[in-house]
């Protein structure tokens, strides 16, 4: 009998030692007037920074963090989507890892917990971060409350206005939530001066959260893109490997959606690094076309340029997503490790439109009952396409997809998608 204690890994996995090529290092810009790399020491909790730059294949998960993982219900379920298989009449077997099962409704909590734990250990009293849809903000608000830290969340204004429920949850956990751009930071005031009705973006909110942390000597928790985040998220993939082995299954195609890349990396890297699986598909949105239109170059993760340059597939740090679009995955860049794996063709990419992912979400609701996050519906769409492809060739392959979150707090997104799709 396999119990949950055995399924949760004791180590996080870092793919960097197993990448096909060197990961270009973070850099200070040419002729920089200050060192961003130096500034990191004031931005991130020390242990988070240490993990970011102490590259080892396996990193022990502190016992206290592992206990918290268990306490929030890890391991998350690995469910065979039998009804979806039947509906599609596919010979493929489809399994999904359900990260929506955590209390905050997404995978984001997997890194919020260790980061908050490290911050609290270092005597930090207050953490800041940004959030778009509110999944990351919620995760930080909960993790901060676990360790008695205060938290301030800069929420992209357009989401702040359309997502009052997420705001409520963050506030219930004890966070202070501001609509970014705010007038609390220099960068926010600069943006507001140019456009007082600016809808905000993740890049802007990120810069504000960092600036606010620097100003007050708080620390900033980072939700995606950096290697340390994907390291923490590797528990998703490590658990999945253990769960599949318990079922005697070997995966063929492994699929995840990509905002900044953390759920995808956390889910697929343990498979890629150990050569499990044959095909890995990263799914983005056609409305935020990072993969098809982005460039692979050094760019800032945040709009103000307070963090070091990193080499990634990017639409540019000042990218603003289309105003009428509810599908999530709005971040302008792709994590450097994932960008490299895409460039090296180890990972394939797909992009789908809002309408396509809306229809896939509905199929998933009808067959599996779960309302997926609009983000995760991108991965589900790719899984459905792969399953239909398998039908043509009677391929009994095993498709594995990460459902990174539930959509119970994204009903307004589905409402507006429904209206747009119906109008067509």
């Amino acid at each position, binding site marked *: 009998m396999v119990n949950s204690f055995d399924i949760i890994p004791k180590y996080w996995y870092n793919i*960097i*030692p*197993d*990448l*096909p*090529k*060197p*990961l*270009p*290092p*973070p*850099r*200070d810009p*040419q002729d920089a007037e*200050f*060192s961003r*790399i*130096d500034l*990191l*020491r004031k931005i991130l909790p*020390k*242990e988070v*920074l*240490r993990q970011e*730059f*102490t*590259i*080892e*294949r396996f990193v022990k998960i502190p016992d206290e963090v592992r206990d918290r993982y268990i306490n929030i219900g890890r391991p998350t379920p690995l469910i065979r989507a039998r009804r979806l298989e039947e509906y599609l009449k596919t010979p493929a077997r489809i399994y999904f890892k359900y990260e929506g099962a955590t209390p905050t409704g997404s995978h984001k909590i997997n890194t919020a917990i260790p980061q908050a734990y490290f911050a609290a250990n270092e005597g930090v009293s207050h953490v800041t971060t940004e959030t778009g849809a509110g999944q990351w903000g919620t995760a930080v608000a909960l993790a901060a409350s676990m360790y008695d830290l205060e938290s301030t969340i800069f929420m992209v204004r357009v989401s702040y206005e359309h997502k009052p429920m997420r705001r409520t949850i963050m506030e219930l956990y004890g966070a202070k939530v501001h609509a970014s751009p705010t007038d609390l930071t220099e960068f926010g005031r600069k943006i507001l001066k140019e456009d007082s009705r600016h809808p905000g973006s993740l890049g802007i909110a990120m810069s504000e959260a960092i600036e606010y942390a620097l100003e007050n000597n708080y620390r900033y928790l980072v939700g995606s893109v950096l290697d340390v985040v994907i390291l923490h998220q590797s528990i998703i993939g490590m658990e999945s490997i253990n769960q599949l082995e318990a079922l005697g299954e070997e995966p063929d195609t492994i699929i995840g959606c990509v905002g900044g890349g953390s759920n995808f990396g956390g889910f697929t890297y343990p498979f890629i690094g150990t050569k499990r699986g044959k095909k890995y598909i990263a799914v983005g949105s056609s409305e935020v076309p990072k993969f098809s239109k982005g460039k692979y170059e050094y760019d800032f993760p945040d709009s103000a340029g307070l963090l*070091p340059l990193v080499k990634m597939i990017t639409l540019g740090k000042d990218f603003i997503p289309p105003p009428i679009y509810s599908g999530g995955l709005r971040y302008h860049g792709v994590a450097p490790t994932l960008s490299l794996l895409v460039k090296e063709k180890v990972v394939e990419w797909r992009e789908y439109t809002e309408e396509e992912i809306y229809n896939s979400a509905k199929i998933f609701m009808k067959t599996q009952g779960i309302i997926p996050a609009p983000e995760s519906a991108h991965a589900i769409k790719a899984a459905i396409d792969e399953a239909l492809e398998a039908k043509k060739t009677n391929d009994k392959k095993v498709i594995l997809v990460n459902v990174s979150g539930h959509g119970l707090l994204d009903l307004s997104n589905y409402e507006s998608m429904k209206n747009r799709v119906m109008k067509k």
Partner: protein
Amino acid sequence: MSKKYLVAYMTLGYPNVNDFYKFIDNIEDFGVDILEIGIPPKYAKYDGPVIRKTYKIVSNNIKNYYEILYEVKQRIKIPVVILTYLEEYVDKLGDFLLKLKESRVDGVLFPDLLIDYVDEYEKYVNLIKNEGIKTVLFTAPLMPDDLIIKASKLTDLFLYYGVRPTTGVVIPISIDSLINRIRTMVQSKLVVGFGLNSIEDIKKAMSVGADGIAVGTSLIEEVDKNGVNGALELIKKLRGVLDEY
């Protein structure tokens, strides 16, 4: 046990040509095994603010770098390795190597060779070696194991392992974990550098198997604070630490 390497870095002609000569005239006696000399690049991609500042000063003051390099080789016997970025010379590498050869320097280290030119690095290594110039390869924790293993077989003198993302900025890291990861993979001498300014970190590095250390920023900080003599004193102190292993 063989002697541990103390590799000293100094920007060419810093802080001025006279003091620079005074520095190199003494380093052998103070226990330096290999001298690295930095030629100012347009973009010091992996350098922190301290070394970047020296490049600015030097490039404003000095016209002919190669004359000085030639003079350096007249003054000291230890190997001299030039450190600069390939990006700037990639289109005129033959000329550059010829100038290095005429200056009689022993080797060259391009920090960006295995990062930005990884697809063709073996070609460049061969080009350099064919000129009779030693190639010190630069590796870092962000490189995959396979590449570090290959580089350790190709490198001359030693393999450079830069443990932090940029020089001189003391990002918190576990030096022992980083070295433990690669020690058994590296067949050549392993010299560790980037932000090694604490004796504690240096001792950690040596105790898990480093064959030497490279120091630069802390020497420059000494020069700025206490002049060349300060930097030489630091070298003496570091030599003492390495001689314990």
